[in-house]
């Protein structure tokens, strides 16, 4: 009844920011259709992709996400007329910025998943999880969180241990 968990060396943490009308509903559909996908994703619901601030993506990486997914309604399907069009520009720009400061864009996925696309949701989540799993942990922001200005740094055993855990 309960299949064994597939063992992997590394289970990535994936944070998904989705709009409530299309992608959240699409993920619900995947559920009602009993489709299966990796359990790594955590979904945050927004009214619209237009509400998703780039800072949230940054915050997610800082909080230890190994991959981030942003997903909403297909162009023209926005429940709020044009929220996804604004989001499209905002993220087109933001991903370029992240890329420029050295974030590997393979860790940041954008998609349009409609309420009818339970299958696409599964595909997008599975692909991102597998891709990020293959890349290994996102160490950049985690390391950064441990770093201090030299004058404030103390090399404690706890810190060394924390580093080794990244």
């Amino acid at each position, binding site marked *: *009844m*309960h*299949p*064994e*968990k597939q063992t992997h060396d590394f289970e990535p*943490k994936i*944070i998904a920011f989705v709009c*409530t009308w299309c992608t*959240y*509903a699409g*993920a*619900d559909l*995947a*559920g*009602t259709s*009993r*489709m*299966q*996908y990796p*359990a790594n994703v*955590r*979904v*945050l*619901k*927004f*009214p*619209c992709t*237009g*509400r*998703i*601030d*780039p800072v*949230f993506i940054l*915050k*997610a990486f800082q*909080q*230890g*996400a190994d991959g981030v997914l942003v997903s909403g309604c297909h162009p023209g399907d926005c*429940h*709020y*007329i*044009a*929220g996804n069009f*604004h*989001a499209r520009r*905002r993220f087109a720009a933001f991903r370029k910025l992240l890329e420029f400061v050295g974030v590997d864009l393979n860790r940041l996925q954008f998609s349009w998943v409609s309420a009818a696309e339970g299958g696409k949701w*599964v595909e997008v989540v599975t692909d991102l999880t597998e891709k990020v799993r293959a890349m290994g942990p996102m160490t950049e922001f985690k390391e950064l969180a441990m770093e201090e200005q030299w004058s404030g740094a103390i090399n404690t055993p706890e810190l060394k241990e924390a580093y080794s855990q990244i």
Partner: protein
Amino acid sequence: MSRIGVFICHCGENISRTVDVERVAQQVGKMPGVAFSTDYKYMCSDPGQNLLKKAIQEQNLTHVVVAACSPRMHEKTFRKAVEAAGLNPFLCEMANIREHCSWVHENREEATVKATEIVGMMVERVKKNRVLPTITVPVTKRSLVIGGGIAGIQAALDIADCGHEVILVEREPSIGGHMAQLSETFPTLDCSQCIMTPKMVDVANHPNIKLYTYSEIELVEGYIGNFQVTIKKRARSVDEDKCTGCGVCMTKCPQKKIPNKFDQNIGMRTAIYIPFPQAVPNTPVIDRENCTMFKTGKCGVCQKVCGPGAVDFEQQDQLIIEAVGAIVVATGFDLYTIDEKPKGSLIKGYGEFGHGKIPDVIDGMTFERLASASGPTGGKILRPSDGKEPKQIVFIQCIGSRAREKGISYCSKVCCMYTAKHTMLYHHKVHDGQAYVFFMDARTPGKSYDEFWRRSIEEEEAVYIRGMVSRLYQKGDKIIVRGSDIAVGVQVEIEADMVVLATAIQPQKGADTLAQKLGISYDKYNFYSEAHAKLRPVECATAGIYLAGACQGPKDIPETVSQASAAAAKVMTLFSKDLLEREPIVARVKESGCVGCFACKKVCAYGAVEEKEIRDRQGNLIKTVAFVNPGVCAGCGTCQATCPSKSVELDGYTDEQIVAMIESL
């Protein structure tokens, strides 16, 4: 300090089969701020809800998280239950551990860990939830109906009968719309005017209906419950109060050869005219473009003959402002004009069928006027070119419709049925004539529709040829129609006396301009978009605006009437309360931080952001800030993501709530 109650639902076995709900409840119980945590078989059941209510009261809970199915399923249920127990409903959140967890993962360990994290995320979120009072907006219980066809008339009468005032605005000099032009209607063949004109008269006589004909919408401001509409009442040049409708002016008017649009330009009218004898209002209008007085300054015959002195050449267009609480848009349709491609249109012409070039190639509406007893031929089917009775007549369906290569992919829905009707009317009037129909498919769903269509073949002897016409040309006084009968697989050539094209139904010209004034959305064909294709088919996404009839998509009369009554019902629902309650998920501006860059205003698709001046006690302007009208705001939050200083915040989805969720992971 928050005292959060967490309720983990088993959903029978739907959740508990894969998620160890007891362990989740136990783990969650240790999270900071959680005062009570339990699991239960069916949280949505009455005992489940009672458990929730009891716990709120006994444990003095301040916030609630129900971990169960999707919030799209039961959020309302639990928020209601929470409200019944005395908490603000927005202090309750749902954690989706069914659709997003137990149903999509098989491994119990993984699913249990994930469910715990999902619940933990919602626990952190709910701590930052604020009490949100329901937003109330006063409602002006008058409504505006745009368009005086059958849809507008039906909606106006229903609302007016309910005791609410209606402003009915019609662009043409008379109400009636396309239905008034029809001869008979399918599938009963009752005379259109016989059933239409009584309704028109009802409108004219209704104490609750204020009728503006020959008028257009100039400007729409405000929001649900509180619209201000500016109506441009074009100068009729005839004083409606003085005119008795005697018609002397029309009989004396020297300009008698003006094509009458109502008769599809095959009948003629005078320069001072009513479009048809049963027009409502029965007040003539002077067509200033064709009136000798207006063109040359000399004539004035109508003024001289008018007993009551109603003719007024000096009359000006008037702007009238009306306050209404709801708007029904019923602007109807227009027919696809096949010989030209309007500038900027995505639709290509059908020049190959000679419409507009071969006089005896006409469209369906022209056929209606020919068949109409009150039409230009007195109901006789006569060809426009020479007035002869056509003995061989060809009907071609799907002109424009379902023709992706021409830019229209939709089905116009009514053509199969009206073509069948046309073959019958033709057969009744030209007993020795033969009707042929080229068709792709026959679409006849509807009560008694298929029976009607079969009758046209089986009893009225119409010959149906499945296939499209490839070529059509004039030869002598005949029109040669060539096509293929794909059912039999042969080429067909018919020497026709007249050809009738079932041209596609399109939205009225200017539908897009009106939509922009109203702030409603429309598709690429300019049909207005409903809020939800299935569940909100008569509402626009913009609150307080409703749709009726063919402006939303092709429809026949019964469907139009149903939708009009449905729109009226929606209006009456809105008017049933003095104050409109709205979900408080709207944006709010924190004025102290706002610097008035109005990026929010630039991205708001609803025009909900206004500029507001802040003044000190002496009245000096301190600054201009953004103000979000809660009556208009739809709650998408695009403004907040755009605001550089985060001075506008979407209640229910604040940065604090979202960051709390991210930080919980």
